[in-house]
């Protein structure tokens, strides 16, 4: 249901997520001696930005009832193109970032067109293009990473804003916040946002309602690719290297964040604030575990995988069960009064 349609229930869902988020942060602070350092908490934001940017578009994609598994591969391809544009083609760094974002958008456009024009399930399209884009990334640079970027690329991924008290906010956080607000307004307050929900809830009815279903679907996949290109640029700036395996497994983080944030994998339901809370939960979990000495990185992978299963299970199976129980007691009553 669209965010505006049943505010009370959504607020409560997001309230649950907020409590969960605070619980995760609290636990991580208790478990990990490094995580709880204030500057490290802020530093965690840096790691949330890249999946966060892509999660915004992924939320839209999933609400239309689709999925985009190729975002990680697009990150890799965009990274390689950014490196090549700067190093081989001699473009300035700014233009190279433009190339990366543009290439991402093109990849997304290809996904969207395949989904719409050939009626191929998004799952298959993006699974295949995941291989295509990753293959292109490896093929274009023959597996060789590019590094030695100039100083001018640094602000995107390594910059800071001092926020007082000696604490510094990672610069890219502002990109995420700005985009998140824009996506929130877009989804909840524009006709195309409403159209996205309508497509996910009943695509046929949306078509009969004369909504621009095909255009919107192509647009959300294009946006997904475009933001993956942007995330790729931030990533390259942060690690100062452009390599073809950048963003490997990235799609898992992004989808997990969305699903944990209550975006229904079957479409039609979900909000941007929810997805961002999901991102916070998953991100803090990951970062906190990584900063805990006794936990190794394969453990983190296992835990994130489990989190995804549990999140989907909770939202797809448990929540509807609870909602049904509530509905039986409450929601049907006005209808009975109204029956002839």
């Amino acid at each position, binding site marked *: 249901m669209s965010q505006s*349609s049943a505010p009370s229930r959504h607020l409560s869902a997001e309230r649950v997520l907020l409590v969960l988020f605070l619980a995760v942060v609290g636990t991580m602070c208790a478990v990990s001696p490094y995580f709880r350092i204030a500057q490290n908490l802020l530093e965690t934001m840096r790691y949330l930005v890249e999946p966060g940017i892509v999660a915004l578009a992924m939320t839209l994609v999933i609400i239309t009832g689709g999925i985009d598994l190729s975002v990680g591969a697009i990150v890799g391809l965009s990274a390689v193109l950014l490196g090549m544009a700067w190093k081989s083609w001699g473009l300035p760094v700014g233009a190279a970032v433009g190339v990366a974002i543009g290439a991402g958008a093109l990849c997304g456009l290809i996904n969207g067109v395949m989904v719409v024009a050939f009626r191929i399930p998004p799952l298959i399209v993006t699974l295949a293009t995941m291989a295509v884009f990753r293959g292109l990334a490896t093929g274009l640079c023959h597996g060789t990473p590019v590094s030695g970027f100039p100083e001018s690329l640094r602000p995107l991924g390594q910059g800071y804003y001092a926020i007082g008290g000696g604490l510094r906010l990672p610069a890219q956080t502002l990109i995420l916040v700005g985009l998140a607000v824009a996506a929130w307004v877009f989804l909840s307050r524009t006709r195309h946002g*409403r159209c996205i929900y309508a497509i996910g809830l*009943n695509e046929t009815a949306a078509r009969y309602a004369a909504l621009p279903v095909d255009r919107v679907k192509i647009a959300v996949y294009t946006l997904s690719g475009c933001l993956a290109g942007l995330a790729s640029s931030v990533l390259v700036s942060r690690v100062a290297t452009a390599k073809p395996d950048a963003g490997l497994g990235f799609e898992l983080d992004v989808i997990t964040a969305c699903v944990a944030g209550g975006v229904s994998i079957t479409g039609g339901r979900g909000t941007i604030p929810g997805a961002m809370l999901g991102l916070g939960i998953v991100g803090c979990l990951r970062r906190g575990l990584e900063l805990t000495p006794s936990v190794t990185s394969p453990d983190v992978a296992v835990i994130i995988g489990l989190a995804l299963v549990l999140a989907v299970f909770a939202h797809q199976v448990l929540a509807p069960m609870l909602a049904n129980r509530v509905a039986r007691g409450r929601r049907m009553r006005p209808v009975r009064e109204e029956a002839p």
Partner: protein
Amino acid sequence: MAWRRSLASGCRSAILCRAVPDGEPHALTTAPGLPTAGGSAAADGGHAPPALDAHHISKRFPGVQALTDVSLVIEPGTVHALVGENGAGKSTLVKIIAGLQSPDSGTIEVHGTRMTRFSPIAARDLGVALVAQEPEHFADLTALENLFVGRWPREAGLISWPAMERQARAMLEQMGAEIDLSARMGDLALAHRQVIQIARALLQNAKVLILDEPTAALGQEETRALFDMVRRLSGQGVAIVYISHRLEEIFEIAQQVTVLRDGRHVVTCATTQVSRDDLVRHMVGTEVAEEYSHTPADEGPGPDVPPVLALEGVTSPAGFADVSLDVRPGEVLGLAGLAGSGRNELAHALGGALPIASGRVVVNGETRRLKGPDGARRLGLVLAPGDRPGRALVLPMTVRENITLSLLRELRRGPLTNVRAESALADEYIGKLDIRTPSAEQATYALSGGNQQKTSLARRLAMRPKVLILEEPTQGVDVGARAEIHTLLRGLAADGLAIILVSSDLNEVLALSHRVAVMHRGHVAGVLPRREATKETVLDLAFGKGVEASARAQARPARRSGRGRELGLAVFLALLVGFLALRSDQFLTPQNIADMARNSAYLLVGALGMTMVILTSGIDISFGSMLAVCAIISGVLATRGVPLPLVIMGTLAAGALCGAVNATGVAFMRLPPIIMTLATLTIYRGLVIRATGGSWITGLPADYLWLGQGYVAGIPVPAVVAAIATAGVAFVLRWTPFGRSLYALGNNPSAAEHQGVSRRGTEWRVYVLAGAMVGLSALTFAPCFTSIQTNTGLGFEMIVITAVVVGGTNIMGGRGTVLGTVLGVMLLAAIGNGLDLLGSTEMDYWESAFQGALVLLAVMTDYIQSRRRRQGAGIE
């Protein structure tokens, strides 16, 4: 126990005769052995129990009381007609009898046995079978197999195809039908699909056969054949419930008739003791009969008023041809005709939802093209489709959102939606149409049918149409709301709106229309002005009196489900082999062929597992990680000196265990397969790295390495294993109920479940089996090398999916063969090997891009092929 049951039913019949009010029978049936029951049985006179005894059935849906205390008794060997208007409760009643829905109260007995569980399988076991209007079928399976899905005849546990053929032929002969049993079900004509469905019911020993509007889409010849069959069956003692809107048919075929109205039982009597007019009166009820006798108050606009919309020779592949009609402002043009006559398709085409191939559409004197619903809407043509939950409304959205859904472009303030204007508009129409809802923020699905319909109309009216095209505006709407909607439509016409009204309710068409256009087999058979339009004149035209043109070939020619894909692949493979043999001397050497077989064996074994998963319309992308788990476990076991047979068993068990985790998520937690296996992909890989610490396993013993590098009779061991696995999977898919269930589930999961295929069980087993196949795959892969790495199998799932999809297995499930998969693997192997031989190291970098592109190409080919089949498809 049998005597108890007959006692219980005896008392039931007795009570029904005395028409004891509701409540009492329940007390009796729960205590069948009580003296009162015995007394009732005696009063019954020892008659055999009726074939069907539905007793005081009530059923409520959100917003609608569908059935109230309805009883129905049918004797063996009779045809009992069930009539009533749309929304009278016929469908709900037969769905309950067939176990598709459970009643809120009431009981059902079949030949004296009470139905305790309401499921299609329970009903089937009692001998009840429902033949729905659009039969539930498995399009990609043969007509023969459609007869037996869920209960394949078996010999020694294996499916006996000869027995199947024998029983089917005997049954069709008994029914007097002739159908090509080897044809693909989806290629059969609808009439033949219905016959297959009836035959299936009879093969399951149906004693009560429910036919729901079986003649709706049949021609006269086919109808006659069906009636012959029905008479023959009732002669054999089958009780038949016959639902039809065509009263003529009922007098021809049925002995008894029951009328339902607004979910209540009105009357049951012999067809010889009732007239057609009586039936209509019972169906309509007196008060509404008056409503219906109301004809349009005026003559409608005269011929001097220029039409707002005129069609000239409009033709569509969707099912109508050469339609010329016009409609004037202020006029209601009724579109009548039987189901399948093309009237609904015409309405949808005018709303932009179905394509128009030729002819002219003239709007306000200008020839225009309709480009989709939005294009039609720009011209002022707006369609309110009849299928409310599927097409007209987005039910989970609120009433406000549904009303304004098509109007948000007009409700903008800057780039954003003007929330206040939106609410105002919604409230305005809620008031105007008197939509009874607690608030505009109510989810639409909780409204009654009538108020849902008003919400749908509200949106369409808010779009300010010039021509409003209405499909079934009062279907499933209660009497009161129907009258309100009729009044509303008359008012709209009086205000100058042009309305095209499509309804299967002829009374409605006659009551509202100024002119009635009657369609027959895709053509306009005639246009009757109001004064000449009566039921008789309309029906004469609808049945095709005086019209001989048969525009549309009803029966599609039965096409062979050929092996086009396999043949094409084989030819392509042969060409590729020829090309490579010419370019490289080494390609066809025995050594190279053996190497190729060895190197692609693991791929084939994995692809066979994936084929089975994809057949059920699932997917498993954790294959690569599972391969790593199995390879590592086999290596660890081997290096610890475990004997080879135990290594093999341990590896297979590890694969099956990984598969079982996936299976549990998919089958029992009902998680989407892609999500579940995306998660386990990470989890399994994480576990592998954690367990090995990233180090390789070396020092593998010789007997283990033999698995990968040895020969049996000159053939590499992995190739032998793969060949055995191929034969095994082919055998399972063809000869076991499990294998056939995969196809049935992939084709039509709900129909498969209705036929007794366990969805959970089958899904669970297929993922476990796929895991075990990955284990086997690991045993043909890991021993080919001297060490086992933790990144074993990265990207394995992608190659496997490529092979399967290229081999012609439909990614949506239900269609695919082992031969296709084998060819797909051979093709990939030949390409890979060829590139190596031609000395292209460059290709290594591009390999994954190439595979992905191949998958896209394969699914695009599938789409283009399927589109040819679905000519005339619209926006859906």
